[in-house]
């Protein structure tokens, strides 16, 4: 059903989308830009979930759906599987990807930050904030996939150590 596209096109499109929304459309309102990007991700996730669940049998519970995301869905979208899945069996799942593909080209220079800025001031969070803009899209995708499978949830991302990226899914019971 799909045709093939060079991966560099996908990378460029993602960078341009984040740059456009956070630089041009909502220049001084990063929260609004984040919400728009997440909404786009939601619709994409919705459509992708229908496409990728076509051949396989349906899911019997939440854990099955999350495992589908970790294995089949992640390998279709990012060409690898999730490296670590943790759950507290009470509706929270943590998906850890040790080398998140869309962040593999992002560079944060830790040495210059430690010397010139105090770690607790906005200096470090500005870099973290810039990187986190790129994570709203995959969070939206995950939220879209789960909503379409009947699991309303909230997804957030955690980048305490690049290139490892963790996505925290909280199922709304």
């Amino acid at each position, binding site marked *: *059903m799909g045709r093939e596209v060079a991966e560099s096109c996908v990378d460029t499109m993602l960078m341009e989308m984040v740059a456009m929304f956070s630089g041009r459309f909502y220049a001084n309102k990063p929260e609004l830009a984040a919400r728009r990007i997440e909404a786009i991700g939601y*619709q994409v996730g*919705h*459509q992708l*979930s*229908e*496409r990728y*669940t*076509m051949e*396989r*049998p*349906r*899911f*019997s519970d939440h854990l099955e759906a999350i495992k589908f995301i970790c294995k089949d869905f992640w390998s279709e979208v990012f060409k690898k599987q999730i490296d670590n899945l943790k759950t507290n069996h009470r509706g929270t799942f943590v998906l850890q990807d040790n080398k998140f593909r869309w962040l593999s080209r992002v560079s944060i220079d830790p040495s210059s930050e430690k010397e010139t800025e105090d770690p607790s001031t906005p200096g470090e969070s500005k870099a973290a904030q810039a990187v986190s803009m790129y994570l709203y899209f995959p969070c939206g995708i995950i939220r879209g996939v789960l909503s*379409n*499978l*009947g699991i309303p949830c909230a997804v957030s991302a955690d980048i305490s150590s690049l290139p490892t990226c963790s996505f925290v899914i909280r199922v709304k019971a």
Partner: protein
Amino acid sequence: MASTACFIIVGRNDIPIYEAEVGSAAKREDAAQLHQFILHAALDVVQDLAWTTSAMFLKSVDRFNDLVVSVYVTAGHTRLMLLHDSRNEDGIKSFFQEVHELYIKILLNPLYLPGSRITSTHFDTKVRALARKYL
């Protein structure tokens, strides 16, 4: 070829998003309404049955006189329901799979709001052609 067949697609919030009479017999007004009524009444049975199995094709879930209701449920809980009087299960399964592909193509349209009515005439033509081919 089935002489009577009524096909509807019901979204996840139980609102029908597509309806079509695809039988080859002449269409009668009261029969069309009766068919839709039977299909909507079968929704409760489908609801219970859908959670018992992880397969997509639920075969025949309900009967009325000599008409049988067959249902195919997608992962997003969209139900494709067919009311028919034929016994050709393989044909019906292939029909459902092809319509599922068409439905995914509609969903991939960024201007389509999921859960709204499908108004594309292209989709309609294709579904009728598939019905003639498989039913």
